[in-house]
């Protein structure tokens, strides 16, 4: 699959592992993913369903442009619903969050 970034850069997932494909996993999805993996491990003794577990847990495929850093949420899904994020800034105000 190929995608032309808004910056003009060509992105694809032909080769893997690559720097383009990422998975976004929410906290609830993370727990669901853990349960799916644990269940399969308990049943079969090993995990063969990694792709399905990521998918069924609700993770979102995110493509990142290695030139401009834009993120394309659900990049492999419906074109009309892909959300594009552009870098807004680096670093945050020291008071924007608790120290650690």
């Amino acid at each position: 699959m190929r995608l032309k970034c808004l910056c003009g850069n060509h992105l694809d997932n032909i080769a893997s592992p690559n720097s383009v494909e990422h998975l976004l996993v929410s906290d609830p999805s993370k727990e669901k993913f853990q349960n799916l993996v644990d269940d399969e491990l308990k049943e079969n003794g090993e995990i063969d369903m990694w792709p399905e577990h990521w998918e069924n847990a609700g993770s979102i495929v995110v493509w990142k442009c290695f030139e401009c850093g834009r993120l394309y949420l659900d990049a492999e899904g419906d074109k009309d619903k892909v959300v594009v994020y552009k870098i807004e800034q680096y670093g945050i105000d020291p008071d924007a969050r608790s120290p650690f």
Partner: protein
Amino acid sequence: VLAGAGGITANATEPQKKSGWFDNAMNFGNTLVSGAKSLGQSALDLGSNAYKGAANWVNEHKADIAIGVGIAALAAATILTGGAALAVAGAVAGGAAVSAGTVATVVAGGAAVGAGANLIQQGAAIKDGKIDPATGQKKTDINFGDVAMSGVYGGALAPVGAAALGLAPAVVGVAAVGGIGVSGVNAYNNFTGNNFLTNNNPYNTKNNWSGMADIGNMGMSALPFAMKGGGDKNWFTGGKAFFGKDAMAQTGKTFQQAGQSFLNAGDKVTNFILGGNNKFPPTGMIPVPVGGGMMPTQAPNNYGPMLGKPQMGTTAVGQSGNIGNTTNNVVGGLKNEPLQSTSGASGGGQQSSKPSKGAGSQSQGKDNTQSNTSGATGKTSASADKVNEWKKNNQITGDLKDLQKRLNSPDKGNRLGAEAEVRAYEQRIKNGEIPEVQGNKAGTDFSGDEIKARTEPFANEKQAKNFFADRIKKANSQYTKQGTTGTVTIDLGTQGTIDGKIMTKDMAQKLVQQSLSKGNRGSEITEVVVIDGNGKVIYTGKGE
């Protein structure tokens, strides 16, 4: 949690795409930094000379002179810089060049305002017999180090404000109106000793010194957050820095801090002028002083004096990067719900599916974690030479420029993917076909064939198994969405080893069989072809 080869990283890089606006902004930023450094040196000289010579004379006249000079400086600066500041603002807004002289005038005016405001404050305090909070005694002397520091910050602040006015006149205008209004209240308090609105005792309690300085700063720049001092000093709140013995003793140190602040400020000003990421404070809010309490109680260590953090009493002038609905979907893992399309544009929450054209929109967040020398050296690869040869002989069509670019990409995955494509083209050319490079066209890599390549050798059999399962599923998903069927070619390139052992036909067959045995991954796959880096077929079939 972000999982991926390189992680979601955001590495700052130099902007690569330049425009007239960019060049002008860069020139302006450079000029500003130079001006700021020059001003810093002038401030050093001023402080030094003041202590050596002029101090004695001033000492005899003190309050009246200070007030008179301060007022004159304010008036002169207002007249002097009014036009110049507008020129800077207009030039930045219009993308025109800003002359060094104009910037210098604005800087000088800002310095005069800052110094003048400080002189008035100190003079008024002496004249009124106010108590120096630092010593507990009546204030009797003018602290010229503080005067100079106020000038330094006023000078640094002024062009930023002017530039901001040019970039976002409405936003800054709101801040300016609010700021000047509050400054007026503070000025009234300072001159009369009344506690109008602020309910603070001028001169002796927190907030009092922000008033007059507010006038200078707000009048010049409408950006009040530069009111905080350099380094670990808080020059305005509490007034300690104005009177205290410690401030006198640490003048040298403070000037050093001021110098560093200027360097930091120069960077921030440059970022600011360049637009993009740091045009406004992180939340898209411009601080407006409220009730004289605008100053931070302590200056943060890593913020320059100009683009400080939003403080109490801020006025929201825009929501930056509102991604509320999208975020909810992501966090909730509700993948199937509609995702709101927002740009995440900074400053004002403008919704657009198009990238902003301003500087900073390009070439940021570059991730070269997978770079190697091939892409970095700019040398054409053997694959690129092949493509050139095919092009010359009209053996290939399509977006060759894009393919050549990818073959020389600094990104390893991008480059190896292109090389796998070239091997596929080569096979087709050998078969007498004239393949078309599809570039960014939608669909599978070839009609009825999806290419999946490997960028690293397999550490163990399980890793290979997972890779085959994942890539075959991806290809299957592609065919499913298209409503077609076809083959998937797994090109191992030079990475066709498992724990150092070359993958054999039996090993490949087993991997394919295992991958297709679960998850309905091969529903649209007619055949899996496993090849090596020479295009040699290792295995073909569905694992039977």
